[in-house]
């Protein structure tokens, strides 16, 4: 049985009172050129990604597929920024976007739930992420 609105609202508030509420920005990037045109710029794009990672801006990034195994249809790049303006400036600096080889849209994402486990081994300085 669904709750009444008031009851549901109160229950939802109780469940979300300790939520993370972390704000991130999500860049959805799609090709605007052929793969052949994009490939020469790929090393620059990847170097930029590693630079963003180094600067602590990049939360997580990679290609997105309609179904596993198929060619990627877009990329999803999740970054830390303080505003849409700042996020847009970061996205514009991507060599693909700069060259007009890919276009993007931007959303703000509020992370409320989720978890991950990181296992760090001191002896060989390895890590696994689950």
């Amino acid at each position, binding site marked *: 049985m*669904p709750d009444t609105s008031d009851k*549901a609202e109160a229950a939802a508030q109780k469940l*979300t009172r300790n939520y993370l509420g972390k704000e991130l920005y999500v860049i959805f990037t799609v090709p605007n050129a052929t793969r*052949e045109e994009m490939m020469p710029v790929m090393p620059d794009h990847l170097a930029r990604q590693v630079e963003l990672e180094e600067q602590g801006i990049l939360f997580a990034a*990679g290609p*997105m597929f309609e179904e596993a195994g198929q060619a990627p249809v877009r990329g999803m790049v999740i970054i830390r920024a303080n505003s849409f303006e700042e996020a847009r400036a970061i996205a514009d600096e991507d060599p693909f976007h700069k060259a007009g080889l890919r276009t993007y*849209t931007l959303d*703000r994402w509020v*992370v*409320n739930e989720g978890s991950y486990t990181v296992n760090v081994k001191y002896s060989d300085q390895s890590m696994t992420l689950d």
Partner: protein
Amino acid sequence: MADETPSPVAGFLQKEFYVVFTRPAAPMEEIRKLMPQHLERQLELEEKGILFAAGPLFDASADASERPGTGMIIIRAGSQAEAEQIAGEDPLHKAGLRSFEVKTWKVNEGSYSVTVKYSDQSMEII
């Protein structure tokens, strides 16, 4: 040819997640009534280690005080079919109040820092 050259992301994480994009398919008033059940389900997925990260998406024109339209739920699953089954069990999807689509996402780059304090058992994600 391009396909025979080594992958430019060789050595990157290449970890697969499934991304559930969920959109309203009923008036907000109806969705709100099932919100506690949806939130309980989210916590259950978190508890089971299935949920990587989830929350609402807002575009630049969205009023921050408004209830969001699209939600993005990133989960761990063994296949597209398994991911779709997990998403289908969300009470809001089950009731047809929201509709969803599932994509595969391969995470190559990114980082985060977690500070854990033993003395008060607090944590901060950066």
